[in-house]
């Protein structure tokens, strides 16, 4: 027992000049362990930082009867033909371009009525 105390005492005596450095290292390590503890604790915690995202709205789709689909298809074709005819008659241009003349002037030039 005396030998153990003597050995421990000799170690303490040897560490005496380094006690400030040892305390500094222990303080640094304790802070490092605290960081790890904080990260683990927060990862396990329920996340209240980010609010729950609202579920995306389901896109609205129309379900048509086959006959109605045919009707819609015919109407679409008629609309496309009408658009093409108006474009041809009036000289209308696509979006982003400037018409060279007004629709009324174009109709008059083509012999149509405004």
């Amino acid at each position: 027992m005396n030998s153990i105390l003597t050995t421990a005492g000799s170690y303490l005596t040897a560490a005496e000049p380094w006690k400030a450095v040892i305390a500094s290292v222990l303080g640094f390590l304790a802070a490092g362990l605290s960081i790890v503890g904080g990260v683990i604790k927060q990862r396990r915690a329920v996340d209240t930082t980010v609010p729950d995202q609202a579920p995306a709205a389901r896109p609205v789709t129309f379900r048509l009867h086959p006959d109605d689909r045919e009707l819609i298809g015919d109407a679409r074709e008629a609309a496309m033909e009408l658009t093409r005819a108006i474009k041809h008659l009036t000289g209308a241009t696509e979006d982003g371009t400037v018409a060279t003349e007004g629709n009324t002037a174009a109709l008059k030039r083509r012999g149509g009525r405004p």
Partner: protein
Amino acid sequence: MRTIRGIPTVFTPSRALEWHCAGTDFLVALVLALPGRTFSTGAIWDRFASIMPESQWALVIGSIALVRIAALTINGHWRRTPLLRALTASIGAGLHAYLAMLFYVPSVSAFGIGAAFSAALAISDIRSAYRAGRDIVVAGRVWDMMRSAPPAPLPEGFSP
């Protein structure tokens, strides 16, 4: 205007302890840097003087304090700031534990006031490191959310 908006982020209650430790270090460095010989006021300073002169102590402690103040000031404006705060809190804990043992001179007093103050600051820094560690995770979650759903850009010419 932008600075005023940032103040509530920089000064939050969870970071008060970090501001306290950084401010204390800055004042200690200022006192050491000012004219006068602090180390000649008592035997308790002999160990400090044997390590390095007063001006160098002021430089080391002041540098750590300024880095901490910088990390706290830009906190919230940069993703890695919580990590920087955690690292500076760890350095602060090491520094204050070191100072506590330097202040502890059994031949002068059982446990001096300087040692008690430094030990309290070291414990405060360990606590600050814990809080900063938790903020690392929170900041990561916020930035992940910002990346997946970025906020709409401000209108042209609009200054908050």
